[in-house]
């Protein structure tokens, strides 16, 4: 994705490393790079998170607004994903250069969140047919170091965990139109249950083996990858979205192996994420920290 030029020799080096199950940075094929996650750092958003996965940097802000529900689904709220590839991340994102990648990322997230078993939009309904919450998930890509799909989905999930939807205390009916009263107390709010929210795992095929969490260099060596959206429900993993990316094709057995690898990686990743989020909340609680800046 980021424009990195590698020579044939460098590519062969990476390929051999993957074959030996010993990648350039010392990881095995099933290891992730270290991550840094921070929530609640954008003061104007209802929920926010910043995730740094080695060199990939993603900032997610969530805004909640009141909207009219769709006439086909009067008892459901709305969620919309928007990805912006900043030109800071890579020079080729300048102008409309990042549009295609941004669309693909947003589309994958929308597909993964579409099933009501993964994300129940009924929770966002205020008055059926009249008022509902609309969540705008704005994702900003600050730096591109490979494996954008995973980073974006993790950050989105963390930001949704952090989102506080104000509690609606009263709804007055005035001439058939509903009038809402929002609670005065800024701490009186509801949270979004994140138990079933899907995360995405990219499984990258390099040579004959599959790896998770490819770095930007490794992505250059691969011609086909599979993005697996995994949602956990009652201890079982389900795929909520699977699609192939890259310009190559796969054998059906490879494809199935990739999905299985993605599922097992997603399971441990998901556990760690939930653990980290709970830990952060316990330590900081509702105290407002002094937020300095995003870039370190």
């Amino acid at each position, binding site marked *: 994705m980021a424009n990195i030029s590698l020579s044939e020799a460098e590519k062969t080096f990476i390929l051999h490393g993957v074959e030996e199950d010993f990648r350039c940075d010392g990881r095995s094929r099933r290891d992730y790079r270290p991550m840094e996650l921070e929530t609640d750092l954008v003061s104007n958003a209802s929920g926010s998170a910043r995730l740094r996965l080695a060199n990939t940097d993603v900032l997610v802000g969530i805004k909640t607004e009141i909207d009219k529900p769709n006439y086909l689904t009067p008892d459901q709220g709305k969620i919309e994903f928007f990805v912006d590839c900043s030109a800071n991340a890579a020079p080729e994102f300048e102008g409309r250069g990042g549009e295609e990648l941004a669309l693909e990322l947003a589309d994958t997230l929308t597909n993964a969140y579409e099933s009501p078993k993964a994300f129940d939009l009924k929770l966002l309904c205020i008055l059926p047919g009249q008022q509902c919450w609309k969540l705008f998930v704005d994702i900003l890509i600050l730096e591109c170091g490979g494996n954008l799909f995973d980073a974006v989905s993790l950050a989105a999930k963390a930001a949704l965990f952090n989102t506080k939807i104000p509690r609606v205390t009263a709804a007055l009916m005035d001439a058939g139109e509903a009038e809402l009263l929002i609670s005065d107390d800024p701490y009186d709010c509801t949270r979004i249950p994140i138990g079933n929210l899907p995360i995405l795992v990219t499984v990258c095929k390099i040579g004959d083996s599959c790896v998770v969490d490819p770095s930007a260099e490794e992505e250059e060596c691969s011609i086909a990858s599979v993005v697996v959206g995994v949602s956990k429900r009652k201890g079982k993993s*389900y795929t909520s979205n699977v699609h*192939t990316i890259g310009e190559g*094709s796969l054998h059906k057995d490879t494809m199935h192996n990739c999905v299985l690898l993605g599922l097992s990686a997603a399971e441990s990743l998901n556990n760690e994420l939930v653990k980290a989020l709970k830990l952060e909340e316990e330590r900081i609680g509702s105290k407002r920290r002094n937020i300095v800046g995003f870039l370190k």
Partner: protein
Amino acid sequence: MPPPSASRKFMYPEQSVPYTVYAKREHPDDIFAKLDKPNELKLEERPTFLKVGALETVKGSAYMEYGKTKVMASIEPPRELGKQTKKIGTLGIVTCTLKYAPFAVKDPACIPRKETSMALALKKALEPVICRHEFPYFQLEIKVIILDDDGCALSTAINCCGAALVDAGIATYDLITASTVCKYKNVEFINPSAVIEQLVSTISESGDDDEEHGIVVTASLAAVDQITECFQKGYLKPETLKELTEHTLAINERILDTVRFVLYNKVKQQLRKDKDGAEMSDTINAVTDLGIEE
């Protein structure tokens, strides 16, 4: 609501809703009960009509009817890219545009999202099959219009583009075919219709907890045994996903026979025409020769 893309072309009122909103809506379970469910699993394609070279004005085109789904694909000859383009590589660039006719679906509000996501999926499916190294620094434009959508729109579009690519004389590694399978309430539907696709996407949460639902589209190359694109949406266990993928691959082979048959006939027809044409021109030449001698 008018489809945003069409608002300039057609004078819809700005804030209108389809009248069906006010009709009594059936419960999804009732719709499901009314559907004729397959008794046994038959891995067959729908009745198919395929015409290669349906348009005269473009390099290659195809028109396909897959049951009631109707799709037209056209391919422009490769065009050279301007020098200022940053995307320089040794491989040609493929761009896909997919448009829905405003009357193709019941609810036009979903058209913009379908258009962008299907165009992306179509591009990913077709890129691996085209010999892109044959036209470096060139751009190949593939245009698809969906005239009527009764389910399986994406897979039909891929099939149609595969045939159109052959008609356009673009070198490909293999013939590409695709098909759709979906699962809803433990019943598997091969080539789901628009009603079933709608049911799958508007499933209600209050159901059996272990229930799966989802839709799988797979595009494959039979000769080299490769999947170029696999797209799944919904909520499926990995085993089910594998099973559904196997089923789509089996249908793909059936569709491949149809496409191959049509292309074969087209070539035969072309050869016959060429032969007739050659004979005709021979006689014309002979006549003119005679004329000169006289």
